């Protein structure tokens, strides 16, 4: 029943999910904001890639840096001028605010691009090894997703900026005492979250058909990945993404795709109750 093909499908899907959720996870972990805009940002990235592909003939893997930079700017400005004003408010306020912004963006997407599902068809053929078949476009998207996620990991580990972000996540007050301005870090972090969303959007555009309605699904997946793996860390998002990808492909074959989603949410609840720090998180490290 569970053969190599299913496992590999799960891993490919999982790599994409990790890239989809890592920005969401970073924003949640560092800013303590659940960014309900995240799904729409990914779809916005997908549409920008689609626009570049149809209007300019630009390959989505080439337009990816462009789209990601645009979204970085958008995210940075949004946090700087809108969200930074409510960072000290209770949980519900930031949730409601990002929900309102999401409604705005979603409506703009529907107006600008209509609700017709689009897809960028690259048709790169497929690879067959033994009994396992993998489409090349999907595989390439997954590898790019993993590379981007790895790049973010290096940024957080190696650069001054990354250390500042991690410092704010670990202890905001101590970070202030070390001369870090959390407001700036918040803006940059939200920008990076949007950048990763845009990049994920370019990859999604190649692999799945998308429409503005996909935003909600992707947001739900990000929730599951985040809670499964643990908040605010790249390895957490990676572990959560792979776990979700495997759950979906294995249970999807076994019980049908709809029930696989139920299992994914049930696992989310279970992890939330038993191991709130996530699969690879350390207890007491928040």
């Amino acid at each position, binding site marked *: 029943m569970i053969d190599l093909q299913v496992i590999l499908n799960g891993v490919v899907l999982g790599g994409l999910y990790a890239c989809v959720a890592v920005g969401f996870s970073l924003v949640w972990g560092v800013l303590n904001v659940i960014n309900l805009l995240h799904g729409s940002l990914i779809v916005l990235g997908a549409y920008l890639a689609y626009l570049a592909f149809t209007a300019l003939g630009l390959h989505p893997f080439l337009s990816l840096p462009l789209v990601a930079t645009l979204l970085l700017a958008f995210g940075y400005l949004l946090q700087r001028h809108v969200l930074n004003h409510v960072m000290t408010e209770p949980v*519900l*306020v930031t949730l*409601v605010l990002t929900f*309102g912004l999401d409604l705005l963006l979603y*409506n703009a997407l529907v107006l600008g691009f209509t609700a017709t599902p689009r897809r960028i068809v690259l048709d790169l053929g497929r690879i067959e090894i033994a009994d396992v078949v993998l489409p090349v476009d999907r595989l390439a998207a997954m590898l790019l997703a993993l590379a981007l996620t790895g790049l973010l990991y290096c940024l957080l580990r190696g650069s001054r900026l990354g250390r500042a972000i991690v410092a704010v996540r670990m202890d905001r007050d101590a970070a202030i005492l070390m001369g870090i301005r959390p407001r700036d870090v918040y803006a940059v972090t939200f920008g990076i979250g949007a950048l990763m969303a845009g990049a994920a959007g370019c990859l999604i555009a190649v692999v799945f058909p998308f429409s503005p309605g996909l935003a909600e699904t992707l947001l739900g997946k990000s929730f599951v990945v985040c809670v499964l793996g643990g908040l605010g860390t790249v390895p957490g998002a990676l572990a959560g993404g792979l776990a979700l990808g495997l759950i979906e492909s294995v249970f999807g074959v076994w019980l049908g795709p709809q029930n696989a989603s139920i299992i994914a949410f049930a696992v989310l609840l279970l992890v939330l*109750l038993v191991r709130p720090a996530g699969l690879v998180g350390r207890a007491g490290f928040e």
Partner: protein
Amino acid sequence: MMDRMPARDRIGFILVGLGAIAFALTPWIGGNYLVRFTTSTCLFITMALSWNFIGGYARYPSFATAAFFGLGAYAGAIAQTRGLAMPGAWLFAAVFTAIFAASLGSVILRLRGHYFAVGSFAIVEILRLGASSWHGLTGGGSGLNVPILPGGPDFASRVFLYSMLALALVTFAAAIWVDRSSLGFGLRCIRQNESAASMLGIDVDRLKIIAFVFSATFVGAGGAIYASWVSYIDPTDSFQILLTIKVPVMVLLGGAGTLFGPLIGVLAFQVLEERIWSSFLEIHSGVLGLVIVVLVFCLPGGLLAVPYRDMFGRLSFLRRETVP
């Protein structure tokens, strides 16, 4: 008790009474559309007051309202298709939802903050997906038909209007009780500092579960009445994510953790949405989003917290300045 009631509360109760009478008279005032609008307003009042128990008094960011609503709708509809009379089905739905909330609450209320929010959000998703894949019981994605109330549309619309109005009033009565009882006091303590409340001997777990059950029961009954009213339900309609955010927004608009805040919030929101809906057909969700953003920045404490008296005071001060 009555003579010790603050003047502001007394005015509030009089206004609620007048409002209830006005609602009850709508079949004679306006057409079917107004009756329909009033019925759905009563449903939203029920949900907003219910959410206020857990989200307002205890400030637990619950997104489970849609779960309770959908569960009540399905429980009532299934009971009715299996031959239970309509009021019996509504009662069954309320009890079923209450039991569900009690058992769920004892598990999920251990979480705090964002984690609780996500957990309650997951419940909605699980129930929605469950309702659309359990074909034998719920009819799956193709939905469920509920027997139509005999007696013609005019009679039916009045029955549902008065049922929803009665439910809203019962919920309001429960809200008054909670607001004045030690339960409400304990929940406010949890809102301010849960650990300290627990340290001072307040049984926080028990209070939170009771508040959660309160926030579920009336919504469950409302869902069942809704199912009988529209006589057709399906998973995406019953377990709406939008609904689960709209209700807290209404409460925040009026003022969370107060008795009259949810009522004011629902009325303001309903009128606003009706206006927006009719004048911006293409961009209504965008305008709704804009309203939410403006609300968060301009009215952080809700309509009730606006210092009207100060405003008037400042105005009269100005007047005195200009006309000496």
